[in-house]
Structure formats: structure tokens, C-alpha cells
């Protein structure tokens, strides 16, 4: 399956391996975090290979730490390359964020001021990654929770410039835009309208929740169905830029496979209407 044939996909969950393998829905594909499959062998890797033999796969990294002020860990890149060689993913992506720093890994997508210095560093890191993998990758907009001083660039201009300088694609997470717009106080629709559509290789949709603490922040918790507002933003985006491989993400309170497939059908219908 090439990326043009990829419709709506699902994050692959260990509990759903059997159902994922059997499912023959048109345009269906699966995404995983490569970190969970960078192992020597065993049933986990065997399942991924089996599912990859039936469906297109996407490797969506969470730990390359492209926005750290240092090059990506060469060993980690080697492992990513080995996994990509083994399962031949249709898409490879990472985040505009950092998480590994000075030999420690902090499992989150951490923010940074979008300075000229950061742009140079990240462009270099994306280039290294693309060179190591021998392919184009897509970079995702993360969720924002903090008002940071010292930005030289808007987020859209920063991503567009990275794409221009390195040739990378973009992964547009519509739920992240909705959350960031709420938390930072901007208009999600206008933001999406200004996003460089030609560079979008993949779209993410997910559910979110309200901060259980005392703030009014929305949290990118991936523990609920996609919200109505996010579906509306998604339809508007697809109407403007056309169909793109779209992933439904769910990482907590995971329902049965059929429930996720039903949600996935909603996205598939939007994509088919745009073709």
C-alpha cells in the first residue's frame, strides 16, 4: 500500500493484534511507537511483522528528541533504521519537541522557545535523521500548555521553514491544535487555514480531557473518543487540502477493537468524500 491508498488508520494496541491482523477494511493502516519494538526478537516484533505483511505501517517516534540542543542519539537512529528496514513502514514521523537530554529520557514532548538558534539545530537534526533513514520524515505539531517568552517564530512559520529547509513533511495533529488553541487562546480554525497543506503527509485525531487539577487547561490524554469540535476542524481541513492518511490515536481507556474501528469509519468517510 502506498501513502495515496492509505485512508484512516489506528494506533496498534497489543490487545488488538489478532483483530488487527484479520481486519480487511479498505485503506486501513496501523501506527506504532518504534521505541516499543526496538528489541532483538520475540512475539511483539513477530506480531508487528505479521500485521505489516497485511497492512501499511507507520512508525511514529516519541523519543528522537529533535528539538534538544544536541544531535539525535546515533544508536537510537541505528535501531530506528533497523526497524524500518525490517517492517518497511509507509510513513515515519517524529515530534517538534524534546525528551532525551544529557543521557536521560523524560517521557513527554517538551516545549522550547522557537528561536533562530533552535530552528538551525532542529533542521540539522531532521536532516541527520532523514540521512540515517534514507527517507523523508514528517514532523508533528505538539500540544502547548505553557506561555513561553522568546519565540522568534510562530509555530506555523517554524514548521513551514523546517519543511522548506530539510524537505521534511509535516504531521498535523488536529486535536493538538484544538487543545493548544484553547490553552493559549488562539483561533484553531484560522490556525489550520494558515497551515501549509501541501506539506501535510499525515493527520492525527485523538480525544482529550480537562486537567483534573485546578487549571482550565485541556490535556492531550488520548483517553476518549475524538471530540465533536475536532471532527469539525478535521472536515474543514480535508475540504481545503484533500485526503491525507489520518490516524485515530487512543492510548488509555482503550475500548474494544470494533469501537475504534467505528470511530475510524467516521474519518474514512470524510476522506472518501474528498476523493
Amino acid at each position, binding site marked *: 500500500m502506498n501513502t495515496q491508498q492509505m485512508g484512516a488508520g489506528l494506533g496498534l494496541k497489543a490487545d488488538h493484534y489478532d483483530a488487527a491482523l484479520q481486519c480487511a477494511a479498505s485503506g486501513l493502516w496501523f501506527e506504532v511507537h518504534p521505541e516499543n519494538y526496538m528489541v532483538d526478537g520475540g512475539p511483539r516484533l513477530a506480531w508487528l511483522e505479521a500485521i505489516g505483511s497485511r497492512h501499511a505501517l507507520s512508525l511514529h517516534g516519541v523519543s528522537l528528541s529533535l528539538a534538544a540542543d544536541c544531535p539525535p542519539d546515533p544508536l537510537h537512529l541505528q535501531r530506528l533504521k533497523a526497524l524500518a528496514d525490517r517492517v518497511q513502514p509507509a510513513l515515519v514521523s517524529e515530534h517538534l519537541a524534546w525528551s532525551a537530554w544529557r543521557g536521560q*529520557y523524560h517521557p513527554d514532548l517538551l516545549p522550547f522557545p522557537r528561536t533562530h538558534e533552535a530552528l538551525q539545530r532542529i533542521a540539522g537534526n531532521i536532516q541527520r535523521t532523514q540521512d540515517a533513514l534514507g527517507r523523508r520524515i514528517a514532523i508533528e505539531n505538539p500540544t502547548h500548555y505553557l506561555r513561553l*517568552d522568546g519565540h522568534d517564530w510562530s509555530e506555523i512559520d517554524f514548521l513551514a521553514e523546517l519543511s522548506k529547509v530539510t524537505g521534511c513533511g509535516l504531521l498535523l495533529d488536529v486535536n493538538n491544535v484544538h487543545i493548544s488553541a484553547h490553552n493559549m487562546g488562539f483561533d484553531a480554525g484560522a490556525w489550520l487555514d494558515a497551515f501549509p497543506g501541501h506539506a501535510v503527509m499525515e493527520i492525527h485525531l485523538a480525544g482529550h480531557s480537562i486537567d483534573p487539577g485546578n487549571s482550565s487547561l485541556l*490535556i492531550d490524554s488520548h483517553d476518549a473518543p475524538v471530540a465533536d469540535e475536532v471532527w469539525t476542524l478535521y472536515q474543514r481541513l480535508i475540504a481545503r487540502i484533500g485526503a491525507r492518511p489520518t490516524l485515530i490515536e487512543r492510548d488509555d481507556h482503550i475500548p474494544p477493537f470494533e469501537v475504534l474501528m467505528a470511530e475510524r469509519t467516521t474519518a474514512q468517510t470524510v476522506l472518501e468524500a474528498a476523493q
Partner: protein
Amino acid sequence: MKLSLTGFQDAFVDALYGVESAAMAQLSEQPGFSVYRNTVMKGCIDALSANFPTIERLVGSEWFRAAAAIHVTASPPGDARLLNYGEAFPAFLDAFEHAQQMPYLGNVARLDRCWSQVHVALDEPSIDLAALGTVAPDDMGRLLLKPRAAATWRWFADQPAYTLWRINREQLEMPENLDWIGEGALLIRSAGRVTWQAVSATDCLFLDACVAGLPLEQAAERALELNPALDISDLLTRLVTADVFVSAVVEPR
């Protein structure tokens, strides 16, 4: 003062783990900062919970997560593959002041790590008894038996760590009386499933000798020193049928 990217990242990580600085005050006072702090901590604790399920069952989730939080702050993950996180957790439990009434926790945690290691080890075939049948009797002493990556064993000299681990791993009820004796465990992955069985100190010594590259005759001598009544043929049959070895090659003279 505007921080460099490096300066920002150093100060941000300090603030994540509670070390405040003037440079981060404007950020760490915002409610959004605790979202990052909580997500990082939850991610690390969830990884320990996934990697040490037997410990969590033994001590309960509340105790486990409180202990894990202390460990995370002292030893954050060094590897983005969180499947590997917790290398130092058994030693942490050995020394943890609130676990002094449960001196076996560290060893039970070591067995959870054995399970994880075997689960993701290299895929290799195993030899069967027929492979030994083709070795000429005169050559048996020079047989080099190589254990599979997906086989691991451990001897605990002064605790029934295997029984404690197995009962909780299999979600059984603890027996009222537990013999406080040394125990060993052998964990193996065959056909995609990790299985376990009790092994003796002699079995472990023999397997250690195989890993060290000693031929059968010398490995057996070591095992016989520990247990003069050992039946080597029985030991070989048990280990081979348990899928322990990837190869058996006669060492050239």
C-alpha cells in the same frame, strides 16, 4: 536574560524534578508546567508498573507507585525504550527503608526483569535430544552447549524468591507456610511464550559454565563439585527438552 537552548533545557529538566531556578520561575509557576511534570512522572511510573507487575501485586498499587516515584526521581530512565527501564529498581528495593520487612522484593524484581529480558530476546532455534544422539560417545566430553538468548536463570541462595515470584505472577494465593530456603528459576521463551521452572544451584552452575564456553566435561565437573550425586544425563535431558540450548558443537581437538 535570554537562555541558550542548552540553558533552557538544563533549567527545564531541573524544574521538572523540583529544582527551581530564577530562569524557570516564569514557567514553573504556570499551571501548565505541572502538566509536563505529571506526564513525565506518570510515564516513568507506568513503565515500572508494566515492567514489574509481580512487585505491584505483592505490595499493592498505592505502595508501588509511591516507591516508584522515589526511584524515578533518583534514577530517571536512561533509555528511551521504556521496556528496559528499571535496571536499578531491584537494588533500590533491596535498600529501600520502607521495604525492610520485605527483604525479598529485590529478588522478586530481578525475576520480573528476567521475564522482560527473555520476552524480547533474539529469536533462535533450539536443539532437541536427537541432536545429542548424533554425537559420538567419545566426543561428548568436548561438547560445547550454547544457551539461547531467550533462556535465563538465577539462583537465590537464601530466599524462596522463585516461589514468591511464581505465586504472584500466576496470581495464586500465598501458602500459609513458606519454607525459607534458597531457590533458583529458569525462564525460557519457546514458540512466543515465556515459561518458567524451578532449578537447582547445580543446574545454574552448570549453565553458567556453558555460557563461559566450557565443554561438557568441565561444566559437568564443576556441577559435580557442588553436587556429587548429580546425574549428568538427567540434567542434560531436562535442559535440552526445556529448549535451553541453541547449539551443541563438538570442540575440535
